[in-house]
């Protein structure tokens, strides 16, 4: 681990002397991109962070939202891309562990996990298959053991992740407002390291996350221990109930160095600690190794001298380590000792605040021609094409994934994974809905509109359950920021997200930046992943079974926007075209209307159109309800388009509403009042999924057959290496 030459001279001039070896290691860890956000921080400020429900307190690692009646919801998102690319099982599992501890740090109980997974082309890439399979097992083993339900996520495959893994994990917490950790420290307070022992595993992890994979330090492998994490959760929550915690921070990237210096900096205090007091796994660890080790499952707790004994008793009960490693001082210095000797003594704000960069940006040249479409071969058999799409890895059912995750534990899960957003019941009678979404194919073609699209899609998913979006998490994942073209795509995405968040008044309550995501073949496509949290005051829309003669209606316009669509990319192997763009006014009207008709209890279910467009969205409804549907493409609202474009365009802001015929008039009147674009496009019944255009049959599929293919395509590929269609 090392500092750049210029950073080294900066450090020297700030402290007025040469740093010690340990100081160098500490600063290198903390000034890494991963811990310091040096490339992104000055720009992230543009995101709106405040809102009527947002509670801010210094030192929180997760966002806090007031959901009324004395309760709060916390939220955070993290990624573990680099570690997962070399050790998918452990990397993905410890990713879950890290984000859970962020939720815990605020003093709330983690109640849900979400995972966003991205890999290379699993149809022909064995490595991608291996990565995918092991990452899923890693998340399952960790989350299941903790007893925190994994209730949603996404899975996507794209050539740009060849030999790489994108593992994003988000988590939600819930608790009483009065139980939030206040992070107020007093003189003579003691600093406690709680949890697993400190070993050599994961040394250099944060640096590793900031390097590209070729130059990685492959020693940064972390072994997950969900059992200890579970004990930490229970111990911390009991200590919280007993009022034993003054301040708390989880240990993540940069290990003790980061946790200690960031705590000291945020609280404007000093901390003096002794590395000999840290419970280590190996006896011969150097001070700098102890300081930067990224061993998992550890928490830093500041407590008062008088409460220490009770905290130790709790740790004893839960058989977890608990070392008093230091105490609070008021000199704003981070003072690291080994026994009597000082090995590092630096001002906290120097360590915790790397000099922020202002990197240059330039529009990538590939964007100049990306919208130009090529001429496609005409489609002779749309039904056959549909079967192929239903079996494609990005569209096939993900039940093989979420079926391995305990999504019921905690007995809150009202809407289970499998449709759009999942819904949890809260203790105050309200409901929480959440989903994460990304779309690198669209973000590559248009970083701004693509990012906005991810945001809107996550909103749409939440809106489909009847929830109003109240908060957003952003995770910005890009290649090497020193490449000005890559940095431009980062800025564009960020600006897009900011505009959307401001216009829709959805505050950003947390996020993460992950840069240097490069594979041997080059940078990944821009991969922002957006999480949206929604609140439901009354009853959520739990999808009800659809029967014969129920109606299907679409809200929103279908446009000629097939850039980045599965149809272009999977069927025609074409990357390019016009990226779907969100019209903010239409988007708002449509969201409002959907929430309105759900509130009025007029529908059976709402489903948004996303990957695969209208054709796939309708098929999903049919397959999950085991009923046919007859759809007329000529009455779909929007521009007049060729049949394939109506079927497969991935235009945003569209919702499919299924309902009992008798409610048609009422629904129409709400929609008319809201002045949205809509039409009844079909009715349910029979055993066939049929699309007609001007009474001519375009697609005719047997529901049962389609369902078989859709359900089994993914496990067939992953487990048996078999393509289904």
């Amino acid at each position, binding site marked *: 681990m090392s500092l750049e030459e210029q950073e080294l001279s900066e450090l020297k001039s700030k402290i007025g002397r040469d740093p010690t070896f340990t100081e160098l290691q500490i600063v290198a860890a903390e000034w890494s991109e991963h811990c310091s956000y040096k490339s992104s921080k000055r720009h992230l400020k543009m995101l709106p962070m405040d809102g009527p429900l947002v509670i801010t307190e210094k030192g929180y690692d997760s966002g806090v939202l007031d959901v009324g009646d004395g309760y709060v919801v916390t939220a955070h998102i993290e990624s573990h891309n680099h570690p997962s690319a070399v050790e998918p099982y452990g990397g993905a599992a410890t990713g879950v562990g890290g984000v859970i501890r962020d939720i815990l740090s605020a003093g709330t109980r983690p109640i849900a996990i979400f995972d966003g997974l991205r890999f290379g082309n699993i149809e022909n890439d064995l490595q991608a298959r291996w990565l995918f399979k092991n990452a899923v*097992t890693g998340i*399952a*083993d960790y989350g*299941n*053991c*903790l*007893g925190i339900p994994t209730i949603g996520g996404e899975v996507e495959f794209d050539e740009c992740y060849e030999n790489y893994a994108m593992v994003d994990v988000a988590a939600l917490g819930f608790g009483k407002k009065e139980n939030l950790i206040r992070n107020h420290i007093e003189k003579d307070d003691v600093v406690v390291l709680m949890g697993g022992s400190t070993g050599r595993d994961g040394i250099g992890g944060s640096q590793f996350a900031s390097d590209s994979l070729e130059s990685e330090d492959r020693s940064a492998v972390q072994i997950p*221990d*969900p*059992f200890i994490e*579970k*004990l930490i959760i229970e111990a911390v929550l009991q200590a919280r109930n007993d009022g034993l915690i003054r301040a708390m921070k989880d240990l993540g990237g940069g290990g003790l160095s980061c946790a200690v210096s960031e705590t000291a900096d945020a609280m404007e205090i000093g901390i003096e600690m002794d590395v000999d007091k840290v419970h280590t796994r190996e006896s011969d660890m150097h001070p700098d190794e102890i300081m930067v080790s990224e061993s998992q499952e550890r928490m830093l707790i500041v407590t008062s001298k008088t409460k220490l004994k009770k905290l130790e008793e709790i740790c004893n*009960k*839960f*058989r977890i380590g608990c070392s008093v490693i230091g105490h609070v001082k008021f000199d704003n210095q981070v003072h690291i000792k080994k026994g009597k000797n000082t090995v590092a003594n630096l001002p906290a704000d120097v360590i915790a605040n790397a000099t922020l960069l202002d990197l240059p940006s330039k529009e990538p040249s590939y964007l100049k021609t990306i919208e130009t479409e090529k001429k496609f071969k005409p489609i002779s058999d749309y039904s056959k094409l549909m079967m192929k799409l239903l079996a494609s890895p990005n569209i096939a059912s993900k039940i093989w994934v*979420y*079926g*391995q*995750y*305990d*999504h*019921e*534990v*905690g*007995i*809150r*899960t*009202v809407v*289970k994974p499998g449709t759009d957003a999942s819904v949890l*019941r809260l203790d105050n009678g309200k409901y929480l809905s959440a989903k994460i979404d990304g779309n690198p194919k669209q973000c590559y073609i248009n970083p701004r509109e693509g990012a906005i699209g991810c945001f809107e899609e996550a909103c749409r998913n939440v809106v489909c359950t009847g929830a109003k979006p109240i908060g957003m998490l952003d995770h910005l994942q890009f290649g090497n920021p020193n490449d000005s073209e890559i940095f431009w795509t980062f800025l564009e995405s960020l600006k897009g997200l900011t505009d959307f968040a401001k216009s829709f008044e959805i505050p950003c309550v947390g996020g993460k930046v992950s840069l240097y995501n490069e594979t041997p073949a080059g940078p990944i496509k821009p991969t922002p992943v957006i999480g949206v949290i929604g609140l439901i005051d009354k009853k959520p829309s*739990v999808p009800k079974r659809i029967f014969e003669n129920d109606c299907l209606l679409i809200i929103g316009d279908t446009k000629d926007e097939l850039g980045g669509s599965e149809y272009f990319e999977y069927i025609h192997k074409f990357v390019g075209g016009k990226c779907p763009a969100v019209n903010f006014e239409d988007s708002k009207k449509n969201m409002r209307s959907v929430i309105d008709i759900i509130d009025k209890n007029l529908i059976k279910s709402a489903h948004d159109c996303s990957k695969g467009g209208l054709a796939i969205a309708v098929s999903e409804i049919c397959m999950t309800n085991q009923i046919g549907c007859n759809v007329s493409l000529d009455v779909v609202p929007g521009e007049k388009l060729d049949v394939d474009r109506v079927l497969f365009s991935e235009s945003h802001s569209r919702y499919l509403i299924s309902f009992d015929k008798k409610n048609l008039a009422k629904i129409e009147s709400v929609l008319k009042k809201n002045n949205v674009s809509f039409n009844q496009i079909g009715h349910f019944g029979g055993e066939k999924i049929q699309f007609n255009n001007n009474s001519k049959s375009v697609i005719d599929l047997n529901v049962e057959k389609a369902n078989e293919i859709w359900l089994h395509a993914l496990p067939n590929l992953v487990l048996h290496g078999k393509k289904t269609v």
Partner: protein
Amino acid sequence: MKVGVLVFPGSNCDRDMYHVLTDVFHLDAEYYWHEKELPKNIDAVILPGGFSYGDRLRAGVIAAHSPIIKDVQKMAEKGIPVLGVCNGFQILVESGLLPGVLLKNESLNFMCEWTNLIVENNMTPFTNQFKSNEKIPIPIANGEGRYYVSDDALKELKKKNQIVFRYSEVVNGSANRIAGVCNEDGNVVGMMPHPERAVESDINPIDNKPSSLIFESLLTKMGVSK
């Protein structure tokens, strides 16, 4: 009456079970940490699900050596109702209170899904309100849930009416599709599916009444009127 909910390091359905006992069925329930003794005045004992000791070595085997299990053994001998759910079932099997073993699911994966149970024995303290062969929609969530006994032992189980629940379809490769069994006296019952996840209508997408009967059976057994 008082129900003891045992808590082992790594239990994670204890709070769910407690909620159902107290908030849904208005029972007096109390947690007992695995190192504690069970007081004499307990009327029923429940071992909830989770990952005691992280499922290390084998699910349930380490917890089966907990001090509190000796008390459970004594209570079981006295005829007090004991229910083990999921990991609780695994612990009861590993401690010898119930016959058989629970092996890795045939899929080799953790499985979380809704399934249907058939009630085979409606004479236990947890099934006395069921009609024989009644169907219960209920979720499973486990990695080591495949029940196994030798063919001879299976014959014995059948003869002594120790099979309490069976899956209505093949789920994980369990012998005879067994999902739950009891001891010879019928007072100790273990089951892999999670009744505590199915008794409330807002989280049960199918029908919450059948699962409720598991707890109502206990109330009936104890002579508590609902």
